[in-house]
């Protein structure tokens, strides 16, 4: 696919608007299209058409495509893959960008192997040679302990991009355009998996709260027991925060998996992040680094989190949080509730 100079972006919507991740892809996409002297195509796949796709033009796309088909109503990888193959043929890209989202990390590798081309997930930097014959990208490896830079001459590069790595595109209300509908001619027979439904389990409402929360109180291995979570919840309740955890808190069964914060869990950016009994592994920090203020409570004063936190408290977390909660209640005029934790 030599000589292709365009950028293709897999667009996603949230609440009928282009998602913040998609706006970031349009931001980096415009830089890459500039380097390549190419065009940006934004494609959206789904059942019924999303209303707001036209805003893709305002955010810098040269062409906005919608591929609508009942087979694309819920995420079915085989059907999505057929549609994206069709879209690649249509838009002749040098690079195809996905967000590091549920669909992005599932679809990007499949598309790359289907097209027998190069693939990179979780990119934090990305550039194209102006000649349009090679791409260079950087991604965290070894759980974030190191960064690796790769290059490839096999294009198009299929890449997913970590959220927060690039500035979102700016909106220009003067840029308007028609949405181009494409018929993907999907073959139902090629769809080998079937979406049966969602399990509305324990994590769903909590998980949405965690992503949107401005204050998050989070626990890790240092909690030592499941009862520690109750104390965390009490603290979170007093300061209007949501509760989350690092991977050991999930692996130990103290919290449901949806509440994991980190490289393979949620990536959040609250105003205030209180990390309790969390040592600060880079896998975990990848999920909360963008918080405005990070507070660490840990009994081990050599824990790496103290290097990354803005405010540190060295001490047994139970005692620290009990003192904290007492003071909060006192200031708020709430009578003391006694101890939820007996210290054992």
């Amino acid at each position, binding site marked *: 696919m030599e000589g292709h100079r365009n950028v293709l972006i897999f667009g996603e919507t949230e609440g009928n608007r282009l998602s913040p991740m998609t706006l970031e892809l349009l931001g980096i996409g415009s830089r890459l299209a500039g380097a390549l002297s190419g065009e940006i195509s934004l494609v959206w796949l789904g059942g019924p058409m999303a209303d707001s796709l036209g805003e893709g033009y305002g955010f810098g796309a040269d062409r906005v495509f919608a591929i609508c088909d009942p087979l694309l109503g819920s995420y079915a990888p085989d059907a999505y893959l057929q549609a994206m193959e069709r879209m690649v043929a249509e838009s002749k890209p040098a690079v195809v960008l996905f967000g590091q989202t549920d669909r992005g990390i599932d679809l990007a590798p499949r598309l790359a192997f289907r097209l027998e081309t190069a693939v990179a997930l979780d990119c934090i930097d990305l550039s194209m040679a102006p000649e349009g014959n090679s791409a260079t990208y950087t991604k965290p*490896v070894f759980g974030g302990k190191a960064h690796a830079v*790769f290059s490839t001459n096999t294009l198009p590069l299929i890449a997913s991009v970590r959220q927060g790595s690039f500035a979102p595109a700016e909106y220009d209300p003067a840029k308007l355009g028609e949405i181009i509908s494409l018929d993907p001619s999907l073959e139902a027979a090629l769809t080998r998996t079937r979406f049966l439904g969602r*399990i509305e389990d324990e994590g*769903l409402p909590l998980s949405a709260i965690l992503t949107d929360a401005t204050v998050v109180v989070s626990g890790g291995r240092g909690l030592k027991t499941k009862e520690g979570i109750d104390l965390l919840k009490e603290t979170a309740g007093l300061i209007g925060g949501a509760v989350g955890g690092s991977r050991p808190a999930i692996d130990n069964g103290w919290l449901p*998996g949806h509440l994991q914060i980190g490289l393979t869990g949620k990536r959040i950016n609250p105003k205030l992040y209180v990390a309790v009994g969390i040592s600060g592994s880079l896998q975990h920090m990848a999920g909360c680094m963008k918080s405005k203020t990070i507070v660490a409570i840990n009994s081990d004063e050599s824990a*790496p989190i103290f290097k*990354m936190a803005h405010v540190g408290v060295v001490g047994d977390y139970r005692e620290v*949080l009990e*003192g904290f909660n007492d003071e909060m209640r006192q200031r708020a005029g709430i009578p003391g509730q006694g101890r939820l934790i007996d210290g054992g």
Partner: protein
Amino acid sequence: MLNVVVCMEIVIDPEMPFSEFRIDRENKKPIPPPGVPPLFSPFDENALEWALKIKDNRECRVAVLSVGKTLPKAVLQKAIAAGADEAVAVEDPLFVHLGPRGTAHVLARAIQKMGRCDLVFTGRQGADWDGGVVWAGIAELLNVPCVTLARSIDVREESIVVERCASDCIEKVESQIPALVTFTSEAGELRGITLPSLIKAKKREIRRWSALDVGYEEREVVQLKDLFIPEIEVVDNYLIQGENPRDKGRNLARLFLDRQML
């Protein structure tokens, strides 16, 4: 009889503290820390655990498959001690720069060579390069459907139903068999290994194949240009003082309220 192949990568211990992590920048590779033995990538252990859970409940044969330049016997034996029926190691000095594409080709060829296979399991991503793409290559090369990020599987007559961990909910997805499934940590940790089972496993042979045995050809399309440890931005840290931890907790609350940080 259900045949399951679990693809397992052997890596440097990912739980190793950051302070001990070193790289050889010239050769663009990590330096294994002395005295810390290599082990299976944790998500691959989650995959093996689920294969063994299936074997607990029905007639099922579980084979473990690893690819690499050198594959320590002791690590492979751990899979047998945990309950796998067989371990196959595709090992060759040629694999020194094996990337995701080459790995997927070697694994797919080896799976074909192993004979009948109903389910292929892997972890969601390797704990070394965090690539997260090899699974897609295996599925595409074997031309089987694939479900990612599983926490559990229900094996039925001619299909599987997978509970899949999406970021905001659990999805139920049905797939035809044969299929490939990737697992995440919510699938559960690999079961404990008893000493007698380990002693027994040590007597078992590991089947070893070379690059030639699986018809390997160099296929990488991506070159590693640099590997470096990024500088951590050390934050100006304000340490809360106090007579004792409880007192520090009170002072933290006062800071939050007085600086209107909430």
